[in-house]
């Protein structure tokens, strides 16, 4: 056991059981999965991405590249989870990934033998040709050999939600700088949100455990958190990662509500996505330690010194029994000192520097450690680390060690200062990039600003809060700075041991070595963005938190340019991976978007209707009856019922816009291609409107209910778009017009009643004394009436089916009553399928033809375009390309062999010509089986179509392998004279 006998911030009264690769292990509350694994001497945790090399735990935080596991099991399995950030809970189950058949014996490790093939640029070099090999051979091979964890493949049983928050000051990170900033702002009465990704707040105070006001730093942090919690306007959010900065002081954050529990509690989400709008923000994200690159630096047991210190001080875990240290800076010596104090054997401390402050070396020497200055580690050996090879003052020596704590210095966590495009600048003194310009409203404090000393963190946090609140005219006073001592922080830049033996890894997660960077340099991929893409440096899920700087420093050394001239790659959100589930929230499955239901939906359900999605709507598609073999039989029955008797259909989904005002007619004249101000009161008219570019935008029937009152209908799909367009016309184009609009689509249930017996049925619905006779209420009449004994209604004699037909609109709540009355009167309910069949039989253009690329002339409506007035789209509809008679135009099609089925999407090819794109003359837009004419019929856009009636062409459908002969015909298949409409 590597658990220390005492100390740490774990709760020894709360032991927790957990499983890793089927081994039953024990940890404590306050552990991470990584600390608990180390406490159980589990050092081999995973296999690397490309070479399947054994890997252990490198870090103690979100920067971890190696220790990725599959957390939980079954549908809750979460691949690529960083063991270093997983809060241990009782009965946690995790397993290693990217190994086969087992972690200890990984047959895929053979990849190491072909490592020369998998080096920098290997994708580009190896898999260029032939391209057909990619899909069939290379990709499956790579996917099997390289990769990380696997998704469960099952629906996620948990929920995720989204929330918004607003504050004066958002503090990102609850280390010393962040806590001090939050305290300062809270005491000034500001609305504060303090967010930290960890489950315990305190940042490095928990890891380094310095004295603040003579008390342990962790205690000071706990007291600060308790004080913050006492303010009503302060929200402390642990387990919450602020992952991105967006426009307008908006910050994205993900709160892990239930990730530390076996399953989420009732009515709680697993995660919550926060959109935080902050007037000001202080970034106190701390710093990230970086490794030194040397041969064999990926062996399990090689860890960052700061992480070793965290495990000892915070989790009471000795990372090993026999520890060596290799560093270029003072911080690692303090880690070694803390280990000694905790009773862990530190036998060797290796520093690349010639001289190290005796105040640092003395305690180590006293503790029995060998101190090797001007020295470096050049290699390691053992499956798990057993031995290191050191070059000390020119001499090589092998030294036993099961843990090597390494440190190449610390880099401020500048990511979020760069999310809106700013770049950090190089600071020679700390050998790191520090923030320069920052997003509006965001300032930086503490280690994230490159101020590593504890007193600087505390005073910097307070100062940043005071400045931020000052911008908001909130007066804050500087709190007394707590007494503390700054740790020494000297560093000498050092990145890569040139004398390395064996592979020296820069990016551990993507298996990018120092040699790969040399190859990229040699082959000319020297710019950082090229280096990144050529070698995949920093492109793994850790986004190179521990490797980017080292990689570009090695490149800078190769090119001879300095690091500042070499520059960094762009930091983009998210700072750490965010689950897609959190981004989706409740918007999945049926709740992906709201579903709109027609007023008769529940009634149609009771009739056994089958529904179809039409945009956001669910509409009754057809109403099957017992004994009907398939949908086609049902639809045929519905069509024939309308054509021979009477049927009804809910058409409420059409957009309805109420248009009122003295200039309403003028507005319609300008938006429709045909004339409107001449329309008489009590009349309806079909209209077509164009976009400015001359293409058809929408069509529909509009009726004049009074001198200043029109009711417009739009297609279902374009209802919102047309409304917005009309508002644009009135507010932007012609503000002088006196017209008011209101969308009334939801307010009216509208049912179509169609068939030779429509008037007969309607007579029992419409209240007396309304005169339904053909003389009193002819085709295209519109008016107001009452129905069913006093229900207010609007009646339109319009027809989509080509039959004698009416549409009745009643207040939406009366829709079901109307449907029930029509059913009782003997009318047959029909759905959108029969509606579609009948409109194709009548040659009406619909969504398939109004596809944004057709003109009025293309649809056979060219003659509707008024020459006496101007209207939107008129000018551009006259462009030569749009008036070319060779343009595909709407005609009908019938199969030459009536037994053959037509296919929508088939392309028209002249008889005898090759079925190639050059001979394409248009395509079939809509098809249906017509029970009225007894065979399949189609509408399509054919070049020069109206002049080719009677001609035969091929309808070629390469997708479904169909190639049939069709005859071009008039698009109206049923009652071409329109006699049935007018009876």
């Amino acid at each position: 056991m590597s658990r220390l006998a005492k100390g740490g911030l774990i709760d020894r009264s709360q032991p927790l059981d957990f499983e890793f690769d089927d081994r039953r292990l024990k940890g404590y509350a306050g552990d991470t999965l990584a600390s608990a694994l180390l406490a159980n001497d589990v050092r081999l945790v995973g296999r690397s991405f490309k070479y399947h090399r054994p890997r252990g735990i490198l870090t103690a935080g979100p920067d971890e590249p190696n220790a990725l596991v599959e957390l939980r099991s079954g549908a809750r399995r979460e691949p690529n989870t960083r063991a270093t950030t997983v809060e241990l809970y009782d009965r946690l189950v995790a397993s290693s990934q990217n190994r086969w058949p087992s972690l200890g014996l990984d047959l895929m490790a053979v990849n190491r033998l072909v490592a020369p093939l998998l080096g920098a640029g290997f994708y580009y070099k190896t898999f260029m040709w032939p391209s057909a090999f990619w899909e069939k051979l290379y990709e499956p091979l790579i996917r099997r050999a390289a990769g990380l964890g696997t998704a469960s493949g099952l629906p996620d049983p948990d929920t995720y939600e989204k929330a918004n928050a607003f504050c004066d000051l958002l503090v990102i990170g609850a280390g010393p700088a962040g806590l001090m900033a939050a305290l300062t702002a809270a005491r000034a009465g500001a609305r504060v949100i303090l967010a930290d990704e960890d489950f315990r707040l305190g940042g490095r105070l928990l890891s380094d455990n310095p004295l603040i006001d003579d008390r342990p730093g962790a205690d000071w942090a706990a007291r600060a958190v308790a004080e913050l919690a006492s303010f009503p306007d302060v929200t402390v959010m642990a387990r919450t990662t602020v992952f991105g900065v967006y426009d307008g002081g908006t910050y994205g954050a993900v709160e892990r509500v239930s990730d530390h529990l076996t399953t989420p509690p009732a009515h709680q989400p697993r995660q919550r996505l926060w959109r935080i709008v902050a007037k000001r923000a202080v970034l106190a994200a701390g710093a990230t330690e970086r490794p030194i690159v040397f041969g064999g630096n990926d062996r399990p047991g090689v860890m960052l010194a700061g992480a070793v210190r965290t495990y000892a001080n915070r989790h009471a875990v000795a990372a090993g029994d026999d520890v060596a240290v290799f560093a270029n800076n003072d911080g690692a010596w303090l880690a070694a000192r803390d280990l000694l104090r905790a009773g862990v054997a530190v036998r060797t401390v290796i520093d690349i520097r010639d001289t190290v402050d005796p105040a640092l070396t003395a305690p180590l020497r006293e503790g029995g450690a060998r101190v090797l200055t001007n020295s470096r580690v050049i290699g390691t050996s053992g499956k798990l680390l057993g031995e290191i090879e050191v070059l000390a003052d020119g001499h090589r020596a092998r030294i036993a060690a099961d843990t090597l704590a390494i440190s190449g210095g610390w880099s401020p966590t500048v990511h979020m200062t760069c999310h809106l495009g700013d770049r950090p600048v190089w600071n020679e003194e700390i050998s790191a990039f520090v923030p320069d310009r920052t997003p509006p409203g965001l300032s930086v404090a503490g280690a994230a600003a490159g101020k590593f000393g504890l007193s600087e963190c505390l005073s910097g946090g307070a100062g940043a809060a005071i400045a931020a609140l000052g911008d908001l005219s909130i007066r804050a006073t500087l709190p007394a700075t707590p007494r503390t001592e700054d740790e020494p922080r000297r560093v000498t830049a050092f990145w890569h041991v040139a004398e390395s033996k064996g592979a020296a890894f820069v990016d551990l997660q993507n298996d990018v070595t120092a040699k790969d960077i040399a190859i990229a340099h040699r082959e000319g991929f020297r710019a950082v963005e090229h280096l990144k893409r050529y070698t995949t440096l920093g492109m793994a899920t850790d986004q190179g938190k521990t490797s980017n700087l080292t990689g570009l420093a090695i490149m800078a050394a190769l090119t001879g340019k300095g690091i500042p001239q070499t520059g960094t790659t762009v930091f983009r959100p998210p700072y750490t991976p965010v689950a897609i589930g959190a981004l989706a929230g409740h918007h999945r499955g049926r709740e992906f978007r709201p579903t709109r239901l027609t007023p008769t939906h529940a009634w149609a359900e009771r009739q056994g209707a089958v529904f179809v999605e039409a945009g956001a709507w669910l509409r009754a598609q057809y109403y099957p009856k017992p004994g009907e073999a398939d949908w086609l039989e049902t639809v045929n029955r519905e069509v024939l019922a309308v054509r021979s008797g009477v049927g009804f259909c809910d058409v409420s989904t059409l957009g309805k816009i109420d248009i009122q005002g003295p200039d309403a007619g003028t507005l319609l004249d300008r938006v429709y291609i045909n004339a409107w101000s001449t329309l008489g009161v009590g009349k309806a008219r079909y209209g077509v409107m164009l976009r400015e570019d001359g293409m058809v935008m929408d069509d529909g029937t509009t009726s004049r209910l009074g001198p200043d009152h029109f009711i417009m209908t739009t297609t279902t799909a374009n209802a919102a778009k047309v409304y917005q367009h009309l508002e644009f016309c009135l507010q932007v184009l012609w503000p002088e017009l006196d017209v008011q609009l209101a969308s009334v689509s939801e307010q009216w249930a509208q049912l179509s009643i169609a068939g030779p017996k429509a008037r007969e049925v309607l007579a029992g619905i419409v209240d007396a004394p309304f005169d339904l006779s053909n003389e009193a209420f002819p085709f295209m009449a519109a008016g107001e009436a009452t129905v069913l004994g006093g229900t207010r209604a609007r009646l339109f004699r319009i027809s989509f089916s080509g039959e004698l037909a009416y549409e009745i609109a009643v207040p939406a709540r009366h829709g079901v009553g109307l449907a029930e009355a029509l059913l009782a009167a003997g009318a047959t309910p029909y759905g959108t399928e029969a509606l579609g069949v009948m409109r194709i039989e009548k040659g009406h253009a619909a969504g398939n033809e109004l596809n944004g690329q057709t003109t009025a002339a293309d649809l056979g409506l060219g003659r509707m375009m008024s020459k006496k007035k101007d209207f939107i789209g008129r000018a551009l509809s006259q462009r030569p390309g749009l008036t070319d008679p060779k343009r595909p135009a709407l005609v009908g099609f019938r199969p030459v062999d009536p037994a053959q089925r037509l296919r929508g999407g088939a392309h028209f090819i002249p008889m005898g010509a090759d079925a190639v794109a050059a001979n394409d003359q248009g395509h079939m837009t809509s098809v249906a089986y017509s029970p009225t004419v007894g065979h399949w019929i189609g509408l399509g856009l054919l070049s020069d179509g109206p002049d080719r009636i009677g001609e035969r062409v091929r309808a070629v459908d390469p997708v479904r392998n169909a190639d049939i002969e069709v005859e071009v015909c008039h698009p109206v298949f049923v009652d071409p004279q329109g006699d049935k409409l007018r009876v």
Partner: protein
Amino acid sequence: MRKGSAPSRTCTDMRIPCPYCGTRDAHEFGYLGDATTRRPDGGDPFDQVHIRDNPAGPHEELWYHGAGCRRWLVVSRDTRTHAITGARFAKEPA
């Protein structure tokens, strides 16, 4: 962009101060484009419909408050920073 050459950035970026509804999230609005084109102004209609400048800097543009008051607004936005410095009803003269 050279340091110091960018205009000052404000903290109101992608929220739009609707003169009717107050400051609202940009998601409530639909975007149309350049608010300074006049239709029709007697020029080439093709240019009027299709040709737009793509300025880097201050821009007057049309936004529609579809999820709010349904007013068309002229919004002043800096295309480099998304800083929004004003919004007025399109119906009213500037």
